[in-house]
């Protein structure tokens, strides 16, 4: 990875931590065990922790569990080589024992790739359900465990009504469990219920994070999500296609904000509580496509096909995070898009 890109990410971490470092004080001199440690979320947690150690002498060490550490060494060699990060090659489902000096756990193992959800539904479900189960079993035996942050999903709220309000943590979402696309959110709901059961029975200090949508460095454009398609098509000067009317509202958080919010939840979140993690700043798909086209400087045509009347809104209400933990979004949608586009251009990941 070229140093320019590393510098970009460091600048993002610096911005996310500016005037907020003291909010993570509890994580100093701690050992954090992270499942899914080399995925998108895990990589950003490692970046921000590295910055905390280098700039603010946090002396926090990470154990990053991953099924494919070779790919990680290729993706982020500057992180893989660090002494404060240890890579553990293991599938989350095979965890038997967690090192006894671990004091915090972040459970981020699961893929949000909806193609995998339908092609390998049993594997996806097993990673989430069995993975969470064995992790919680092992965590019970840790003498100094202070907190587990279970990364759930905003998808557990199910399908949103047309024009519905921002989604609060108390929203009772409805999911039709008898359909292949529910495999991921239903497994995530089960994992949340498991955390609740371990908290109730063994007082395992489990906090739930429900992430929504993110865009930025360490992502790839191959997933068939609207924002990925828009950026990819703009970067290639292809037509940006919107099947519906362009009116559905979505929101996107920049990953340095995400990483800071997650560490803050790990440090100060209340066990037994679920928190939305995402940007409350909504944007219509039409406006999103126009902004992306503008920021790329693309010649792409935006083709709104009007083949459905979808006006759904998938935007988190983050009042709980803001009021109880003082969390705010530092990178707005314009900067999020501009930095993401720059990343994809610099890395050559334009497809």
């Amino acid at each position, binding site marked *: 990875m070229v140093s320019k890109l590393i510098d970009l990410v460091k600048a993002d971490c610096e911005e996310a931590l500016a005037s907020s470092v003291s909010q993570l004080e509890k994580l100093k001199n701690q050992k954090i065990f992270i499942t899914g440690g080399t995925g998108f979320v895990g990589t950003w947690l490692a970046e921000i922790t590295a910055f905390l150690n280098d700039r603010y002498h946090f002396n926090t060490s990470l154990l990053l569990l991953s099924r494919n550490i070779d790919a990680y060494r290729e993706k982020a060699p500057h992180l893989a080589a660090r002494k404060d990060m240890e890579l553990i090659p293991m599938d989350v489902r095979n965890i038997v024992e967690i090192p006894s000096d671990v004091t915090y756990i972040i459970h981020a193992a699961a893929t949000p790739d909806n193609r995998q959800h339908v092609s390998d539904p049993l594997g996806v479900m097993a990673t989430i359900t069995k993975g969470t189960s064995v992790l919680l079993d092992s965590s019970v035996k840790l003498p100094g465990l202070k907190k587990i942050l279970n990364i759930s999903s905003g998808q557990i709220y199910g399908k949103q009504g047309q024009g519905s309000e921002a989604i609060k943590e108390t929203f009772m979402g409805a999911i039709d469990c008898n359909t292949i696309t529910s495999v991921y959110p239903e497994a995530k709901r089960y994992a949340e219920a498991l955390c609740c059961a371990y908290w109730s029975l063994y007082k395992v200090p489990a906090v739930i994070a429900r992430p929504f949508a993110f865009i930025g460095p360490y992502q790839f454009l191959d997933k068939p999500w609207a924002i990925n*398609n828009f950026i990819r098509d703009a970067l290639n000067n292809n037509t940006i296609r919107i099947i519906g009317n362009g009116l559905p509202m979505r929101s996107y958080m920049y990953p340095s904000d995400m990483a800071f919010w997650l560490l803050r939840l790990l440090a100060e979140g209340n066990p037994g509580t679920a928190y939305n993690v995402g940007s409350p700043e909504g944007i219509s798909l039409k406006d999103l496509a126009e902004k992306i086209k503008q920021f790329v400087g693309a010649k792409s045509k935006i083709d709104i096909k009007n083949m459905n009347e979808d006006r759904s809104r998938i935007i988190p209400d983050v009042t709980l995070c803001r009021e109880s933990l003082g969390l705010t979004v530092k990178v707005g949608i314009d900067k999020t898009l501009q930095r993401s586009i720059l990343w994809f251009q610099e890395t050559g990941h334009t497809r």
Partner: protein
Amino acid sequence: MKNVIISDSTLRDGSHAISHKLTKEHITAYAKAADAAGIPIVEVGHGNGLGASSLQVGLSLLDDRTMLETARKNLTKSKLGIHVIPGFATIKKDLTMAFELGVDVVRLACHCTEADITERHISFARERGKEVFGVLMMSHMAPKEVLLDEALKMQSYGAEGLIIMDSAGAYLPGDVQSRITHLVSHLNIPVGFHAHNNLGMSIANSVAAVEAGAQIIDASAKGFGAGAGNAQLEVLVAVFEKMGYKTNIDLYKALDAADIVEKEIMDAAPSIKSVSIVSGLAGVFSAFAKHVAIAAKEYNVDPRDIFFELGKRKVVAGQEDIIVEVALALSDKKKRGQHG
């Protein structure tokens, strides 16, 4: 006024009807005419799609490159579409070449219970900025619940539309209405329908599909397609216009394009032959007709018996070799009957 997108399969499904012997002149003449008529999507290629030319399903007179290059030169407004069945078409050899030649729309097809095999092809096509529709062939063989499950997979892989094919011409309007309604109410992407005319239902079934919410309808000029043919494009344009649906196709010019097919391309106008009725009733792939006729003649058995036996065995496209096996078995049974 609601829009219906007509996807023209004349130069692809029609290829079956002339044993994949489309010439450059055929493609040039029809593509020009279709383009002038404002037909939104014009599919071109071997009847079984990209990369399918083979001894197994029939050798194409022209290679894929020549067919696509010829069509591309003559399509200025209409999008150039291809039918792609993973297995026949590979990403590296076929899709990459097709994209270099300027294909716009990729119709990613599989047997109606095998959507899993389309993931990589759909992803690749989307990554290259192509418009991608998922296509479930032989859809009469699966109940609507299974079709939806497979359709959801294609939607998750990135398909921007989902088309069910009545490859055997086996549906009645009620069957179409039930399936399309179920898909439309559960998918986030537009739904389409591809008819065959074995039971004389292709127009009625296409109308039923649109009334149930389908927004993409496949059709062929003069019904030029496998077996008893497809829904006749120019008839559908007229019918949809009368029903108040907008196709954005110039009817007169569509009629002119159909005349070209009749005079210059097809050997004979599609008709509902007795084997077509039987294959529709038996639920067997329409494009088997020629292979069945050959086997029936060679082994001196009734082609209708072959179709019913194939229907019992639930064969699907790509299993053409079973036709000979069935013909042999029927012939053997006949001989033993004579001697026993």
